[in-house]
């Protein structure tokens, strides 16, 4: 059976996505760089604070890579976790790898150290933009069990591309947060089909929020990441103006849509309600040329 990216741990994902045995971890678990804040709140810490950072190769090219472990506090960003990510991105400014890979899986800011986490996310944002400004692409892989939400949802969209699986989710406020705050009529987080239709990989891909939809297999993510190595960052005014025009159009075209299916229909996709059932390859074929 193919190895599921969704089921794999962060360490297993790194091992499978990068060239075999090429990954060298920086501040590994034995360094015990853990969060002192969790202990203060009587919560167990992890030896790597839920993120693995290091150097490796992808298709023979030198890359830096980070992987968040959703199993530990939903991949949430705390002070150490965030600092490891910032340090890795800044390392890229020195070592100039072919690309930086972010294997994201995060609910956003870790509430136990919320202020440190929020500031860390904004430092990650600045650092991502600095790396891209230096001409090094930052590639996001999003297919873990906890998705990519909160500040990390913003970080992901600062990068050059997001490679996502159907199981992957990308957004800002999680459905549970919206349901808790605004009521179940606003967003029924137990209606998982609705959740995935709204923030799942297929809709993100059709909107243009994600660059490529892949099957839930580590090999598929690896192949897409290799293709993404060829990207060239563009933070020019012209690029941002193009993005601005596209985002403006999105509000105009889809601002009144109630459901993702309405958007897919508006994109000219026939029988859009069948999209959730399609495998990645069929989905990509059927929706080719019909993305926002």
């Amino acid at each position: 059976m193919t190895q599921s990216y969704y089921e794999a741990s962060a360490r297993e994902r790194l091992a499978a996505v990068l060239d075999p045995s090429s990954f060298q971890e920086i501040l590994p678990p034995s360094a015990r760089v853990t969060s002192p804040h969790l202990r203060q709140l009587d919560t167990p810490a992890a030896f790597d604070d839920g993120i693995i950072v290091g150097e490796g190769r992808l298709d023979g090219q030198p890359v830096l890579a980070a992987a968040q472990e959703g199993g530990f506090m939903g991949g949430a960003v705390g002070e150490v976790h965030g600092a490891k990510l910032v340090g890795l991105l800044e390392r890229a400014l020195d070592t100039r790898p072919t690309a930086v890979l972010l294997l994201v899986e995060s609910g956003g800011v870790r509430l136990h150290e919320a202020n440190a986490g929020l500031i860390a996310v904004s430092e990650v944002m600045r650092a991502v933009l600095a790396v891209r400004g230096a001409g090094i692409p930052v590639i996001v892989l999003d297919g873990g069990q906890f998705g990519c939400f909160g500040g990390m949802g913003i970080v992901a969209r600062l990068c050059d591309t997001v490679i996502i699986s159907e199981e992957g989710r990308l957004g800002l406020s999680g459905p549970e947060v919206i349901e808790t705050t605004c009521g179940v009529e606003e967003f029924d987080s137990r209606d998982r089909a609705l959740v995935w239709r709204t923030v799942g990989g297929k809709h993100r891909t059709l909107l243009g929020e994600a660059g490529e939809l892949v099957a839930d297999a580590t090999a598929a993510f690896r192949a897409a990441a290799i293709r993404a190595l060829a990207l060239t960052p563009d933070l020019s005014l012209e690029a941002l103006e193009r993005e601005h025009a596209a985002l403006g159009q999105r509000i105009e075209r889809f601002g009144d849509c109630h459901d993702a299916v309405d958007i897919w229909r508006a994109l000219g996709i026939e029988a859009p309600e069948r999209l959730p059932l399609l495998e990645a390859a069929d989905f990509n074929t059927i929706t080719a040329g019909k993305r926002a």
Partner: protein
Amino acid sequence: MRDWNTQARNREARLARAAHLTQGKTVEAKDAAALLSAVLEPGDRVCLEGNNQKQADFLAKVLAGLDPARVHDLHMVQSVLALPEHLDVFDRGVASRLDFSFSGPQGARLAKLVAEGRINIGAIHTYLELFGRYFVDLTPRVSLVCAQAADRAGNLYTGPNTEDTPTIVEATAFKRGIVIAQVNQIVDSLPRVDIPADWVDFVIQSPKPHYIEPLFTRDPAQISEIQVLMAMMAIKGIYAEYEVNRLNHGIGFDTAAIELLLPTYAESLGLKGRICRHWALNPHPALIPAIEAGFVESVHSFGSELGMEKYIEARPDVFFTGPDGSMRSNRAMSQAAGHYACDMFIGSTLQIDLGGNSSTATLGRIAGFGGAPNMGSDARGRRHASPAWLKAGREAREGRGLMPRGQKLVVQMVETFREHMQPAFVERLDAWELAESAGMDLPPVMIYGEDVSHILTEEGIANLLLCRTDEEREQAIRGVAGYTPVGLARDKRMVENLRDRGIIRRPEDLGIDKSLATRDLLAARSVKDLVRASGGLYDPPKRFRNW
């Protein structure tokens, strides 16, 4: 001269009171309360159809809303208390007495109402007992049942979840009771007739389709490596050794793991065609890969499962379906099959004591056990033989000079600790305390130790059939109880002795390499994999999707 026809004349009087509400047999939903008020009399025995899956939810709401000054002291006889309304009828004073089998999610509230003296419980039955008593001394005077559709004449189509309906209607209609059905729709012609019109008195189209609970869907994503290991032990240590071919699986992730290991692990052991061919089982989605792999020849079901409709329709050789293609389930028949026609029951529990008695009863809840006690007990009246039944009987009797006889395999499969480090093995079941606090005649035991043939944990399998003394039996149980206090208190030498005699078997004794017990062995690791295995025919409920 004695009047031998009082029931029929009472029935006529009830029908006459409701005559102005009907056109043929049809009653408008808005007149439902008036209908119930007209036909019900204080003290009536009433069956409000509550199943594992489909619920007569509209009629439940109407009944609970009746004026207790007019309708009161009803005696409810129903298998499952699933909805809040099933208890509202007591809370509001419409009903006062209850005979039932399973209360599931309402267990805590039920306990509270009993403690307050608002409900007088006759007994907590198994399904077969309660159904049996419908035909002996608990015959419903009025039954409120549930069907998918009715035609203008009043014939009912139950759809795939037939469940209790035929049993309830038969008991009521043939003792001159009154049968009222809520249906999702009234049509000109039905796909098939499950209940003939002349057994049905009134039909009401409910404002909303009846509620169905997806009770038997287990997401393979939640199956742990430990459960995979236990499933390997079950297949190699029990299914293969006894050549178990006719069986029932309890509901849960432990048994779902076994179902998902059939096409992989069992296949690799060459067991296809040798085990697991005939089932009394709800259509578990987790069984799809085994069906597709050719393990399964037949499945008869108590009820259906949401999302399995198209798959079942496309596999008529396996499932019991009508000419219309949809499943015909029947709880009473399947329970009888599970008790008498199956060689094995395997299921989980919350607590097991040193006698092997097991219970899911916990303090502050009165839940009942539904069908598990019928499945999980030796059928003492059974006569027909099978290799599994004969082998189990031999093992239990060897060297004791007894009359040869077979025995059912009743396997309790538990991890030694549940979540939050609750031990599954205890010196004394909570059931004792519950019996005292709720004034029950007996502690609520789900499966009696004398019926249990094997206990399977991650530490090993204890074969209780081979135990010859109470002491051996106790040590066999301690010997698989892991690091629970019960397990830690084992006599280590005696446990090793039992192991030498094959009464306790560890994974390594079975030739199982624990490091191979990974989720990669599962034939499906997600609900999406189940959809794939079904060729797109399985349509899981929304809450189980991540696409």
